[in-house]
């Protein structure tokens, strides 16, 4: 049932685009119906909870709970929402206004979820949704609204972050995300540290939402939004979310001094600041915005006092405020609409003949001023009743009462200002007439409700009792009445009204004083300064990281890793013993060999030298893998090493021979970082590996692998049977790398090759004669290599070999063919390398698709032909073979051949620096044409 109510509101939002398409602006009428229906449903329901699974593994549910407090706020959200929607249907010009209606109903839906949430995660998500809705609603009011909307978003999103912090802390501290359980947890009274953290975070969240000092700036700023939006934001939705949050958590924190201090202090400051600011405004809407701030300040202060009386007063005042503020906003919108202005100074020069509008404004303003017999009077009376009995928090009852009384007197003054400002009565002025009832009907109801409920406040008793009970955690019986007899609150009220009247009478003298008075800084400037500061910080930070030199970018992750390693070492304890004998005497030979290679690689000063010593390290790695029992890996490493060195040599001729010497001041920090990184690695590997027996996965592969796959080479079966998807992914990486290399070399011109100075008379100069031995050898060995390659491919499933190794052997064969050639401007192997890579991936994926017949992608298929076991894994391995051959060939062909630019130069398109192309005079062959094309 509860879920049905929420679903109704959400469905309204979903259907809003459709309804507006059909009905245009009149959609407001239709869209308000489900909101009213949901409100009726909630009233009938009264209370209840509902659990809908959402993220069950995390214990987070779409939990809903209806109690007195949520019912009160729900009624405000839905009824005021419906009133605003019906008002909008005639307020706007004829048109669809799809976005407006969608966003407004979305806003109502977000508020519904927020108020009904019984899970703090749901609460947080809904909270953020209201922030987004209000941002979008403000931002759609045109270009002038952009800055205010962004400022609003920043302030409220910061509050959202604060709420996230609070929610996380609460969930971790109490071990549940259930809102009712969190509030009932006894730890808030016991663990003051955690309680204080949560209180501070919650208070900041609520203050940003409800525009409380020091976050009040966004609310008047957001007045650029259209009037119905402002009305909803101020009366029932956005700002009331903060009040709801505070009331909701009041049972847990109302006796923690920090809670009382923060709320009362901020609330009273806001009440006074807002009231003074309201008196200085001429724009009726802006005046109302400041009055909202001021009224919310009083509300926050009441919640801060936290006694049952105060909470009761707060709930009554929330209702009263929602009624008079929505009416005021909507009718100011009416005036604005008819008169074309809402500036008091302009309105005085008009003849406003709008009896309903002015009447409703007067009633509502009187309610705000706290005049009997309106609901505002009842709530102000309750407030003073609560304040005079406030417990002595940092601020005693006297201070609180006096501050609230002053704020109330100022409220009286600015309420009068609204009434007097709205009724322009210049007999010679432009005549402004009343709007149609369709527009004023709904807001008049709100204004009238303030009067009716003021006369019969006892009708609110059940609602207020329920709300106050929920917001205090103890049973509270509310007996609202207009007349309480002669007592202190009545005396204060009388004083407030008298002072208010005096302020109004003396307005001509007070106004100039108020206008000259000015804060040394405006809150908006502060927000803008913070924004500018953030942007500046962003620029500075990006400045650190925007260097084009790779070393900065590369150093950062290394340094962070060292940091993590250091923290890890400090926290090391209770390591399990090292499993077995992990070091063999022969290992030390490898360590020394590798150390020599690495140190040489660090010190070497020529490029050729660097390639050679890194090659040495690679061959030492081969030995390491051999020693670790990884035969396939060792073979792969060996072949890759050969091919890497070949490719590097192809490129070296395009690079200078020597590295430029680096000064010590640059070398030293690198050395320090390098040694630290090395130590971190050693410690990490020592501490974190080799301390357990064989993994269960390995045990499975070793005991079951051969039986399942029919292959004895366990590593190969893992590659092509068990984890073929990994291998297919890897083939794709190879393919992408091949394409990127080809694209790069076609679109960019590589550095030109160096001129090689060889004496014409030296035997070295004649390439054809010199390559005789290699060519002869290659003719003999070439076919053998091809056969070996195929042999390795076929036997891979049983013995060392497989697609990778076979392809690398084949690649080495091609390397030999390139080496034997006397010139390098002919493509020796005319296989389409990119197509090979593609074919490899297609074969691999195709085999996988066949596997679907066996139940899953890439599942291997087995058949037996003539007593010989065949498996689809072999076909897959052919795919691997082709892809790897493709990448090797593309490297040779793309890097080994002269670049097209260099060839153009040979044809006479001299581009200056191509003179050093050693092949400029090489004989042209038909192959050449093909490659260039």
């Amino acid at each position, binding site marked *: 049932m509860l879920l049905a109510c929420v679903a109704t509101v959400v469905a309204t939002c979903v259907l809003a685009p459709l309804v507006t398409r059909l009905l245009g602006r009149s959609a407001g009428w239709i869209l308000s119906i489900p909101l009213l229906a949901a409100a009726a449903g909630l009233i009938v329901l009264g209370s209840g909870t509902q659990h809908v699974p959402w993220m069950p593994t995390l214990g987070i549910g779409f939990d809903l709970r209806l109690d007195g407090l949520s019912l009160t706020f729900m009624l405000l959200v839905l009824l005021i929402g419906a009133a605003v929607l019906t008002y909008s249907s005639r307020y706007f010009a004829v048109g669809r206004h799809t976005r407006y209606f969608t966003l407004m109903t979305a806003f109502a839906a977000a508020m519904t979820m927020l108020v009904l949430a019984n899970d703090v995660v749901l609460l947080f998500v809904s909270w953020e949704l209201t922030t987004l809705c209000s941002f979008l609603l403000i931002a759609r009011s045109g270009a002038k609204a952009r800055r205010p909307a962004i400022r609003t978003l920043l302030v409220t999103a910061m509050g959202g972050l604060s709420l996230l912090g609070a929610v996380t802390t609460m969930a971790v501290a109490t071990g549940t995300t259930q809102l009712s359980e969190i509030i009932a947890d006894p730890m808030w009274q016991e663990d003051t540290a955690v309680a204080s953290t949560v209180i501070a975070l919650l208070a900041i969240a609520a203050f940003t939402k409800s525009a409380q000092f020091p976050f009040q700036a966004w609310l008047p700023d957001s007045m650029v939004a259209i009037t119905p939006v402002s009305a909803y934001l101020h009366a029932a939705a956005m700002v009331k979310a903060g009040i709801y949050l505070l009331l909701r958590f009041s049972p847990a924190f109302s006796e923690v001094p920090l809670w009382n201090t923060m709320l009362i202090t901020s609330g009273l400051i806001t009440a006074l600041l807002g009231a003074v600011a309201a008196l200085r405004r001429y724009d009726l809407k802006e005046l109302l915005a400041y009055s909202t701030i001021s009224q919310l300040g009083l509300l926050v202060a009441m919640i801060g006092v936290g006694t049952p009386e105060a909470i009761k007063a707060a709930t009554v005042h929330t209702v009263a405020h929602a009624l008079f503020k929505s009416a005021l906003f909507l009718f100011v919108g009416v005036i604005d609409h008819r008169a074309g202005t809402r500036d008091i100074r302009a309105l005085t020069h008009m003849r406003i003949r709008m009896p309903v509008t002015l009447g409703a404004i007067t009633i509502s303003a009187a309610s705000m001023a706290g005049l009997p017999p309106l609901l505002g009077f009842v709530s102000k009376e309750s407030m003073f009743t609560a304040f005079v009995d406030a417990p002595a928090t940092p601020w005693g009852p006297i201070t609180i009462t006096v501050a609230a009384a002053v704020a109330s007197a100022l409220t009286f003054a600015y309420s009068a200002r609204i009434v007097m400002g709205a009724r322009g009565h210049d007999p010679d002025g432009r005549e402004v007439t009343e709007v149609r009832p369709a527009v004023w009907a709904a807001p008049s109801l709100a204004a009238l409700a303030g009067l009716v409920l003021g006369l019969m406040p006892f009708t609110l008793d059940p609602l207020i009792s329920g709300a106050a009970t929920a917001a205090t955690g103890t049973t509270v019986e509310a007996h609202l009445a207009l007349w309480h007899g002669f007592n202190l609150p009545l005396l204060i009220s009388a004083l407030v009204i008298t002072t208010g009247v005096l302020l109004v009478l003396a307005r001509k003298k007070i106004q100039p004083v108020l206008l000259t008075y000015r804060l040394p800084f405006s809150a908006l400037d502060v927000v803008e300064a913070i924004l500018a500061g953030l942007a500046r910080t962003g620029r500075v930070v990006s400045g650190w990281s925007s260097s084009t030199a790779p070393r900065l970018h590369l150093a950062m992750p290394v340094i962070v890793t060292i940091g993590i390693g250091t923290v890890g070492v400090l926290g090391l304890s209770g390591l399990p013993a090292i499993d077995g004998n992990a070091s063999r005497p022969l290992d030390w030979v490898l360590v020394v060999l590798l150390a020599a290679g690495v140190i040489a690689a660090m010190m070497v000063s020529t490029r050729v030298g660097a390639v050679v010593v890194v090659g040495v390290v690679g061959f030492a790695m081969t030995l390491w893998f051999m020693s*670790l029992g990884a035969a396939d*890996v060792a073979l792969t490493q060996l072949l890759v090493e050969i091919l890497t060195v070949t490719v590097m040599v192809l490129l070296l001729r395009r690079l200078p021979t020597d590295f430029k010497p680096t000064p010590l001041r640059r070398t030293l920090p690198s050395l320090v970082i390098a040694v630290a990184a090395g130590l971190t*690695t050693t410690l990490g590997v020592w501490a974190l590996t080799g301390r357990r027996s064989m993994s269960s996965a390995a045990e499975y592969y070793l005991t079951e692998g051969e039986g399942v796959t029919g292959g004895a080479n366990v590593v190969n079966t893992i590659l092509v049977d068990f984890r073929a998807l990994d291998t297919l992914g890897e083939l794709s990486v190879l393919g992408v790398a091949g394409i990127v290399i080809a694209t790069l070399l076609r679109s960019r011109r590589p550095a030109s090759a160096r001129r090689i100075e060889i004496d014409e008379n030296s035997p070295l100069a004649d390439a054809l004669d010199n390559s005789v031995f290699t060519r002869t050898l290659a003719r003999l060995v070439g076919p053998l290599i091809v056969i070996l390659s195929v042999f390795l491919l076929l036997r891979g499933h049983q013995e060392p070999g497989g697609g990778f190794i076979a392809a690398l052997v084949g690649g080495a064969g091609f390397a030999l063919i390139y080496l034997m050639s006397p010139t390098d401007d002919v493509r020796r192997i005319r296989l389409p390398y990119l197509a090979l890579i593609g074919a490899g991936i297609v074969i691999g994926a195709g085999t996988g698709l066949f596997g679907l017949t066996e139940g899953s992608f890439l599942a291997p298929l087995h058949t037996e032909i003539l007593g010989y076991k065949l498996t689809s894994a072999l076909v897959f391995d052919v795919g691997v073979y082709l892809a790897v051959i493709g990448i090797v060939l593309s490297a040779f062909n793309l890097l080994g051949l002269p670049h097209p630019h260099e060839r153009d130069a040979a044809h006479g398109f001299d581009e200056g620096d191509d003179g050093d192309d050693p092949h400029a005079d090489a004989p042209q062959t038909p192959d050449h044409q093909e490659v260039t094309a």
Partner: protein
Amino acid sequence: MTLAITAGLLVMGAVYLLLKREMLRIVLGFVLLGHAANLVIMAAGGASRRDAPFGAPDDLSTVADPLPQAFVLTAIVIAFAITILMLVLAVTGRDQDDDTTVESDVDEEGRS
């Protein structure tokens, strides 16, 4: 312990080369870093059992873990492709190998 020391040495050399200006040295740094990473993966499988994993051995206590070997095998080939890619970047980049290349080219031509 020997594996840990070797990996540490490789990382030291790798990081030192990564922090150099020349792209070739950075590429070589990545090659060394790849070696180190492969050794770390091998170490994760344990270095105390070193018999090559073939067939279905009766005694598992001396056979090496095949899973890291499969990972490392593919890693080597991917590293090969990436190394070539980085080498191509080294010769096609705007600053070519490093920002001192232009000067040294001039030097060389001056010498020759």
